[in-house]
C-alpha cells in the first residue's frame, strides 16, 4: 500500500511536465516551494510543539536579501544565495533567543510581533526595500550554466531542491535528536529531569526551521522574480500554518499536502470566486471537524478502516 502511494506520488511529480501546459507547471513549482516552506514550519509546529505565526519572516527575509544583493549591489546569484541563507539562519538564531523565552501562546505572540516588525520595515524602509512597490526586475540563477527561465526547467530545479529538503528534514526528525525534540514537545518537564536541555533542543530546531524557511524564500524570489512586503505579512505566515494543520502537523507528508491545498484553492478558486478566503475557511473548518489530526493522518486512518481494519 505504501509502495502504491509512493509510485502515485512519484508519477504525479514526474509526469506533469511531459504533457501539462505552462500554467499547471508553474502551479506545480509554486506548490513545491510552498511545500518546503510548510515542511520547515512543521519542524516547529508539528515536531517541536512550537506554534509560530511568524514563519514568513524567514521566507521574506531570505527572498529580500537575495533580491537586494543581486539587483542593487551587483552580487552574483551564488554569493547572494549563500549570504541570503546565512543571513536568514543568523536571524533565526537571534529571533529564537527572543521567542523561546516563552512557550505556547506567548511564543506565538512573539513570533507574530517579530514578523510584524520585519513587515513594517519592508514597507517603511523604502530607500532600501523600495517599499510598497517591491523589488522588481529580478533574474533567475543559471546553476551550472542551465537557464531556469522556462517553466519546465524551473520545475525540475524546484523538484530537486524540494526532494532534498524533504529528505534532510525527514532525517532530522527521525534522528536521535528528533526523538529528543518530540520528547520535549510531549513532556518538557520530564525530559529536563532525564537530562535533556529543552531550551537548546528547541532553539536548534528553530534555527534549522529558519534555514529551510530561507531556502523556500530563495526559490520563492527566483520563481516570481519579484518581491513585495506581503510575502512578510501575517497572512503569509497564517496560510502556511493553515496548510500544516490542515495537512497534518507532525507528519512528513501532511504539510506538503496542506500547502498544495491552500495554493490550489488560492489559484483556482480565486478565478471564479472573489472571496476565496471564505471558501478556504470553510474547507479548513470541514477538515478540522472531520479529520482533526489533518488530511494525511485522517485519510490513512480511513483507508485502514476501509480495508477491514488491518493491523
Amino acid at each position, binding site marked *: 500500500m505504501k509502495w502504491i502511494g509512493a509510485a502515485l506520488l512519484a508519477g504525479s511529480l514526474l509526469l506533469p511536465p511531459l504533457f501539462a501546459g505552462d500554467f499547471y507547471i508553474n502551479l506545480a513549482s509554486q506548490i513545491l516551494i510552498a511545500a518546503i516552506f510548510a515542511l520547515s514550519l512543521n519542524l516547529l509546529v508539528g515536531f517541536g510543539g512550537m506554534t509560530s505565526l511568524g514563519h514568513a519572516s524567514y521566507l521574506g527575509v531570505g527572498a529580500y536579501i537575495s533580491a537586494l544583493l543581486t539587483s542593487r549591489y551587483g552580487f552574483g546569484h551564488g554569493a547572494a544565495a549563500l549570504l541570503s541563507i546565512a543571513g536568514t539562519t543568523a536571524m533565526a538564531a537571534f529571533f529564537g533567543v527572543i521567542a523561546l523565552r516563552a512557550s505556547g501562546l506567548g511564543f506565538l505572540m512573539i513570533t507574530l510581533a517579530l514578523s510584524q516588525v520585519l513587515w513594517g520595515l519592508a514597507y517603511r524602509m523604502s530607500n532600501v526595500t523600495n517599499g510598497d512597490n517591491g523589488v522588481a526586475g529580478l533574474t533567475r540563477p543559471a546553476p551550472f550554466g542551465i537557464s531556469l527561465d522556462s517553466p519546465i526547467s524551473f520545475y525540475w530545479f524546484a523538484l530537486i531542491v524540494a526532494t532534498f529538503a524533504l529528505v534532510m528534514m525527514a532525517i532530522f526528525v527521525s534522528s536521535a535528536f*528528533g526523538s529528543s525534540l518530540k520528547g520535549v514537545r510531549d513532556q518538557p518537564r520530564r525530559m*529536563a529531569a532525564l537530562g535533556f536541555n529543552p531550551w537548546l533542543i528547541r532553539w536548534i530546531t528553530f534555527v534549522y526551521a529558519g534555514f529551510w524557511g530561507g531556502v523556500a524564500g530563495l526559490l520563492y524570489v527566483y520563481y516570481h522574480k519579484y518581491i513585495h512586503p506581503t510575502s512578510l505579512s501575517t497572512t503569509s505566515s497564517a496560510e502556511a500554518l493553515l496548510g500544516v494543520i490542515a495537512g497534518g502537523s507532525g507528519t512528513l507528508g501532511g504539510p506538503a499536502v496542506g500547502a498544495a491545498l491552500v495554493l490550489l484553492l488560492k489559484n483556482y478558486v480565486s478565478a471564479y470566486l472573489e472571496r476565496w478566503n471564505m471558501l478556504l475557511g470553510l474547507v479548513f473548518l470541514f477538515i478540522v471537524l472531520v479529520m482533526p489530526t489533518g488530511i494525511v493522518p485522517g485519510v490513512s486512518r480511513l483507508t485502514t478502516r476501509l480495508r477491514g481494519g488491518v493491523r
Partner: protein
Amino acid sequence: MTASTFSYALEVVNLKKAFGGLAVTQNVSLSIRPGERRLIIGPNGAGKTTLFNQISGDLRPNSGSIRLFGSDITHLPPYKRAHFGLSRTYQIITLFTGDTLEHNVTLGLLGLRRARWQMWRPLSFYGNMSAEARRTLDAVGLLQLATHAISDIAYGERRRVELAMALAQQPRVLLLDEPLAGLSNTERATVKSLIASIPRQTTVIMIEHDMDTALDLAETVTLLNYGRVIVDGERDAVIADERTREVYLGT
C-alpha cells in the same frame, strides 16, 4: 570539595520557599547518607512534593542550599542535575503516552548520552541502548510489553515504567514521589520488591502515604508538616515519637 562533604549523598540546608504569603518550605534541612533509604511522610499539603521539586530543580527555592555529593546544585537547571546523578519519578504519571515502553525507557538512557544531539542517525542505530532499555524493562517485569504503547497498558504497569525510566539512568540519588499511589495490593507487593532490590549505590528518597509498605523499605524517616521538619531520624524512633502521633492523630 572537602572530604567531609562527601559523607552525604544529599544535603539540604535551611531551604525556604513561599508562594506569595504561603510558606511551603520553612527552613528545611536534610542530611542523607550515600545508600540510605529515606522515607518522607506528612499529611497532604505538608510540602513533600514541593521539596522534591526544589531538589530536582523544577522549583527555585527562595533561600537555602542543596548539595549533591558535596557539589552545590541549588542554582543548576534540572537537566544538569540529571547529569550529576539525580533521577526522579512523578506522583502524577508523566510518560510519553503514544510511544512504546521501550522508547520511553530508551529516552531515559538517551538523556545522559551524547547521542541525544545526533542529528542524522536514528535512535534505532544505537542497539546497545535499546538492549539496555529491554534489560531494565525485564527487571521491572514488563519485557513482554516492550513494544506496546503506553496508552495500551494498565495504570499499575505505567507506574512501573515510571520507575524503569529512572532506574535505567542508574542514578546516584533517586527521588520516588508516591511510587505506590493508586496500585492494587498485588501491584504494591511487586513494586515494593522492586524498590527493595535497587542497588545500594543508589540513595533512595521516597514520599509515600502507604505506611504499611513504605516503612518496611525505609531506614530513616522525615516527618514534614506545614513545610517544616517535625521529626527526623531512625525509623523506629520517628514512629515512636510523640510528635508523629500528634501530626497523624491530633492531640
